[in-house]
């Protein structure tokens, strides 16, 4: 592989990492608050649909992004409502949310746009690309870092913001206390339920951005189940990084690289199926490396 190939691989990595790192940052919020949020997948998928649909209708990608964020936040609220208010098992509720979103997006796509499988149109306006001023001129690095959608850069800023919030603000302290020891946090006067509501809605907001990037950041289309496990992979990044933002970001980057590698390998002589498997296999390996103790969730069997 020559320098152009490597530059392409890294640029693809940057692009593919964005939805993962956004969803994983959101997942870090809910995970820190002590809720296992598998629903990231469905939130991302629905947001993707909403952003593509709204971009198609209004010809403004930013309206699409806003629609994605609102959709994600609403689903975060629904998840919170069921888990916190109605005491649903969080694992099963997440799974149900994913299934619901998969069906709902397909159903609404059929209803509103009359297509099955995928929705492609020239009227879907994608996000603009950002040319970074000085970096663009640097030979190798310019090609890698410059020319992505604004959400690509925003994602890393938001990761830093999340990191600051977790360790330097009141909210972050409450969040971690609630996750660490809910009874103690409760005794200290922190509202466990309210904190978890906030965390889950924030997770939805981040998934909304992730979905918008997936739908409008590069390809400008929506396909049934187009997240194809990315929400779960993001969730794995959260577990692997123990919901610590820097580690979560690093894990996302690793997964983004695996995905990019899969895409680049398709161009070489490797069977597509094997290159497609790479991120999923890596996820299992990462899971093994991540925890060396028993999982902490509880299966309710009533």
């Amino acid at each position, binding site marked *: 592989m020559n320098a152009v190939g490597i530059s392409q691989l890294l640029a693809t990595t940057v692009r593919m990492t964005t939805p993962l790192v956004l969803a994983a940052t959101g997942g870090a919020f809910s995970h820190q608050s002590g809720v296992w949020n598998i629903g990231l997948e469905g939130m991302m998928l629905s947001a993707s649909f909403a952003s593509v649909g709204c971009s198609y209708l209004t010809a403004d990608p930013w309206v699409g992004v806003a629609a994605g964020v609102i959709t994600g936040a609403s689903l975060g609220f629904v998840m919170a409502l069921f888990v916190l208010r109605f005491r649903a*098992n969080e694992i099963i509720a997440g799974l149900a949310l994913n299934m619901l979103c998969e*069906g709902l997006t397909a159903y*609404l796509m059929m209803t509103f746009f009359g297509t099955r499988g995928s929705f492609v149109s020239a009227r879907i306006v994608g996000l603009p690309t950002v040319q970074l001023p000085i970096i663009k001129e640097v030979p190798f690095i310019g090609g890698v870092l410059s020319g992505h959608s604004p959400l690509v850069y925003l994602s890393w800023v938001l990761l830093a913001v999340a990191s600051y919030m977790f360790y330097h603000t009141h909210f972050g302290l409450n969040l971690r206390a609630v996750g660490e020891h809910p009874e103690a946090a409760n005794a200290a006067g922190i509202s466990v339920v309210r904190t978890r509501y906030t965390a889950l809605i924030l997770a939805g907001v981040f998934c909304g951005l992730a979905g918008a990037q997936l739908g409008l950041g590069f390809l400008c289309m929506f396909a049934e189940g187009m997240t194809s496990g990315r929400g779960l992979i993001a969730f794995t990044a959260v577990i692997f990084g123990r919901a610590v933002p820097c580690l979560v970001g690093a894990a996302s980057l690793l997964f983004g690289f695996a995905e990019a590698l899969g895409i680049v390998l398709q161009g070489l002589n490797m069977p597509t199926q*094997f290159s497609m498997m790479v991120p999923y296999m890596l996820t299992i390996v990462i899971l093994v490396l991540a925890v060396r103790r028993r999982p902490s969730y509880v*299966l309710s069997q009533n």
Partner: protein
Amino acid sequence: MTRDVALGRQRSAVKVFTSMLRSILPVVTAVLAALAAGAMLILISGHNPLVAYLELFRGAFIGRANLANTLQATTPLLYTGLSFMIAFRAGIFNSGGDGQLMVGALAATVAGVLIRGWPAHLHVPLAMGAGILAGAVWALVPALVRLRYGANEIISTMMMNFVALYLTDYLVQNHFKGSGVIGTTAATPRILASAQLASIMPPYLVTAALPAGILLAILLHAILRRTVYGYEINITGTNSTVAEYAGISVFRVMLTAMLVSGGVAGLGGATLIMGVQKRFVTPFVSTLGLNGIIACLLGRNRPLGVVVGAFFLGALQSGGLFLQYRTFVSERIILVLSGLIILFVTATELTRFSGRTEEGATR
């Protein structure tokens, strides 16, 4: 004295009935709530929900052909539901039913195509055995990864689904392609007649796999209720620490439960090929595993409950296809309804009538 005994019996019968009612009622409420929410969605899309649900019901139950379709759809769900149930009872969340079913289906296909000259009464069990084995092997990876390293099996089993999808696609496309399939999909050659399951409801594709699945449910019921192993599974699933203290090898119980779980899912895939599809079509898109989870939850994690849950979902599915054909309401509504049902079923506070929460404010 005999009258006292008789009274006691009567009272216990009433008790059993009320306790059954108490466990079924939330499920019924959840299903109704999901149907109500689904009705709103159908309304938004410009159709009459009453007409749609009527067609759904007709498509599921009215007429021999429709009923046969429902039974045909029920069969694989029975296996994936039981598969999930066994692991879940032992405290493992096996969301990899789809992958295990897929590799089981391919293994049975390979055995059904390549092994020639065997009589049916040997060929059929052999192909089924291949399916069971493949499913169990596919479940072994996440099981070991969980038990040796404590890695979350919910994620790893789902990842194994994706790996199975691409692996089977690769194998069929490159090494095992038959002729006669149009479009972007590919398929294996047809399995030999000696490996096919005969219909018990000709001309429809309802096979002996359905009664066999019900028998399996009864067998599992007996195992869980009456054997030491079943007892060990129940304790391990309820509280693995207690199980460990009681001298039960949690590792052994969970591992075997997961292997059985994968094997049953693989068997479901095998019977699907041998009874219905007769060849493996790739990419093998399947939501049978996920629906098995719903069947199990609807059936309150009990083997015989799974039979009811699978039948309900089978009816929903065959009714959904009929609905799409008759009214242009997309059958994707079924996926939405399934998601809603499982969401409402797990929302214990929403569907329980005697209010009051026990845990207080700490959740």
